[in-house]
């Protein structure tokens, strides 16, 4: 095969390969320590990922519950309408069967002072 082609040029490997192997075999503790460190790092990473995966659904549910509660509270303390101003209190619009009638449950904050309507 060698005589009919010059396709395969014989390459010379880079120097130092044998020395590197000798060092690896004569100082196995170094590679063992590196391997140990890699294993430890991998273990920590795997545990972190598993903990994240395990905790994630609970965190999401808690966030959803918090968001729902926050929006409900905001709705509860929001001003009832543009033509009604509520000072130092909160109101909640109640369902009304008559479109011309709006019902509000009004609660003053702290004192029993009545709400002021405009």
């Amino acid at each position, binding site marked *: *095969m*060698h005589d009919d*082609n*010059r*396709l*395969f*040029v*014989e*390459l*010379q*490997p*880079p*120097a130092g*390969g*044998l020395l*590197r*192997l*000798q060092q*690896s*075999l004569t100082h196995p503790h170094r*590679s063992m320590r590196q391997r140990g460190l890699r294993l430890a790092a991998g273990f920590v990473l795997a545990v972190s990922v598993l903990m994240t995966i395990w905790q994630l659904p609970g965190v999401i549910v808690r966030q959803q519950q918090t968001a729902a509660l926050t929006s409900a509270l905001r709705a509860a303390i929001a001003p009832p309408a543009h033509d009604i101003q509520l000072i130092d209190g909160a109101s909640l619009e109640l369902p009304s069967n008559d479109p011309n009638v709006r019902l509000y449950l009004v609660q003053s904050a702290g004192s029993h002072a009545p709400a002021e309507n405009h």
Partner: protein
Amino acid sequence: MSLRQDALYASYQRLERPLYNVLFRQLWQAEDCQDVIHDSYVRVWERREQVNEATLDALVWTTALNLAKNKRRWRVLRRHVDVDDASLQGGTDAQPHDFLATRQLHEALRKLPRASQQVLLLSEFSGLSGDEIAAVLGIPAGTVASRKHQAMERLKTLMGATLDA
């Protein structure tokens, strides 16, 4: 049956160059080839209690080819560009005029089936007999000769096409 350190080093000195030449035509990165050769010998040494010195070279060949295969799979997963112009220079003594031929050879070798490619490279560089190559690759001895012939013909055709292009 236990492998001696001097036997391992002797094997390294014997096989480093052929291993490098075969692996370079598969990985096309000098540093990767060095790593694969080194790691192969380290792995063999780690199993030295079970290694028979009579079959040491074949074991090293099998280990190195498997590691090279794993490295190619990693490259596919990482979408690694398996060759660049600098690495095509090959070894430390590669001449500039070899660059074009190496590039053409790379293109042609990539188009060969992997099994044929390995038979061709081992036949060219390993110094192993047909039976030994068959043992290393885990194929019937008769298949080696036929694959080698087919691979060489295909390679010549591809190289001709590359040169014409």
